[in-house]
């Protein structure tokens, strides 16, 4: 045993546990690193610390009730997750929601995406040792939370979409608030570049680190900004437009480098796209009912259903097997974080431990999304 561990050069491989692993931290992930000196030979993620068996719980809930469980997957994309379940039910029952609902959902999605990317931007700075970015990002995200709070009544677990429409109508302040916010944030987003994007320490630590090739991105199913940084055109908003995405113009941010810096850049650029999508829609929200006529008890026909949406982290899918009852027979969530985590071992081999922090941050993992 001892002899096996000693490699040819006479060095010995050893193990280190890494990652926030304390019951009170929000994302508990343990990485078992096999190291040779400072070089990573293998990364073995151990997950399941925040497993709440949400898929099993969903089997006992009606379709309206499942929506609020999806808030607790990727809590930064709560709105998109809600929408996935709502769209699934609407498509299965062939309910047509009004244009108003579609446009509001799209605006809310993009606001959520902005907020999520802002938080990620703050955290990546902090992971790399720059506290300032964290404070600046939270300053900007706080205002989005306030807008959300006014309309949906909650800051994080919004539960705003329901099958057939929305929980509440927009707050009468909403349009003005969002427009003010975009005006404000457009002056702040260039600061993000000044603070971090051009910083020599930051670029040195991210450029060329954790290169993910296009073929690997496809075979591991890495989606979202992380996949698009490798050139994988996987934006569900483009490939299978839902809600109002077919009536807005926006670019899918595609990069070729596939390293940590490209993943960083693709998210920052995506914020500009989100701003432009909201700007196209905010002035012409059509009138209409916020709820399509629905039966009191929603029952899906027998069969299998799948619905995908683009969250801030990639493709989120809901797969439902229905046996015709008011609760599903089986539910499976395809969470983007899980697939993105699976590539971690592959792209961090041969790098130093410090690089692993950069790789993990740029993959933008949300642990409750992985564990479910």
């Amino acid at each position: 045993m001892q002899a096996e561990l000693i490699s040819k050069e006479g060095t010995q491989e050893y193990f280190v546990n890494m990652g926030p692993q304390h019951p009170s931290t929000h994302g508990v992930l343990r990485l078992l690193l096999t190291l040779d000196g400072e070089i990573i030979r293998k990364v073995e993620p151990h997950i399941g610390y925040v497993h709440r068996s949400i898929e099993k719980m969903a089997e006992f809930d009606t379709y309206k009730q499942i929506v609020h469980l999806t808030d607790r997957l990727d809590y930064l994309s709560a709105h998109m997750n809600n929408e996935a379940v709502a769209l699934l039910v609407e498509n299965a029952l062939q309910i047509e929601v009004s244009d108003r609902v579609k446009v509001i959902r799209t605006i809310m999605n993009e606001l959520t995406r902005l907020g999520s990317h802002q938080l990620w931007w703050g955290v990546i700075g902090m992971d790399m040792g720059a506290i300032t970015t964290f404070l600046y990002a939270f300053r900007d995200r706080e205002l989005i939370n306030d807008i959300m709070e006014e309309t949906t009544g909650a800051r994080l677990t919004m539960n705003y979409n329901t099958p057939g429409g929305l929980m509440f109508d927009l707050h009468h302040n909403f349009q003005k608030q969002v427009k003010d916010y975009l005006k404000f944030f457009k002056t702040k987003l260039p600061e993000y570049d000044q603070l971090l994007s051009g910083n020599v320490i930051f670029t040195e630590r991210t450029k060329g680190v954790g290169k993910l090739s296009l073929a690997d991105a496809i075979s591991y199913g890495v989606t979202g900004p992380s996949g698009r940084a490798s050139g994988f055109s996987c934006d569900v908003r483009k490939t299978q437009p839902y809600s109002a995405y077919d009536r807005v113009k926006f670019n899918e941010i595609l990069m070729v480098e596939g390293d940590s810096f490209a993943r960083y850049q693709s998210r920052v650029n995506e914020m500009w796209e989100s701003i432009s999508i909201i700007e196209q829609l905010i002035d012409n929200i059509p009138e209409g009912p916020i709820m399509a006529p629905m039966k009191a008890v929603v029952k899906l026909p027998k069969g299998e259903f799948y619905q995908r949406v683009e969250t801030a982290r990639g493709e989120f899918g809901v797969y439902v097997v229905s046996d015709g009852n008011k609760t599903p027979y089986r539910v499976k969530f395809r969470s983007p974080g899980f697939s993105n985590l699976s590539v971690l071992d592959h792209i961090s081999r041969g790098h130093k431990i410090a690089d692993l922090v950069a790789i993990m941050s740029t993959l933008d993992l949300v642990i409750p999304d992985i564990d479910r």
Partner: protein
Amino acid sequence: MNSIIKYLKGISQGLNTLWSGMKVTGYYFFNARKEIITVQYPDNKDTLKIPERFRGRVIMVHDQNNEHACNGCTMCEMACPNGSIKVITDKVLDPNTGKSVRIIDQHVYYFSMCTLCNLCVQACPSDALAMDGSYENAVFNREELTFVLNLPGSKIRDNVKD
């Protein structure tokens, strides 16, 4: 020679980016007064405006006569995904008609199991429930999180639909 040039270049580049970052932080350092970003939490309690839709806790709406609109239909109990509501009903004889009618005895609400999803408020046919904007809900004892939502001595408002 090449490596020295690279070294010096690195230093100047580093100073450059340091400067561009410091410009941003410096701006906020000198303009902090105009743009207050963080506030000490309890200090702004008086001026704090909680949005009316904020979901802090489920309450039952009572009017000034201590009357509510709940007829004990248990729709909220069925809508709740977490079993946080238990409606205990009672049967009383209506003195006017002589028929027995259903009234609520206790509307028990387990706040500790509530995810504040708003489904019960939406499900209630007589709008008896609402969300209030309380946010300081931490207590020392788990038992303190169980509430009876209908106030003591309250009764159902007249002409509430059954």
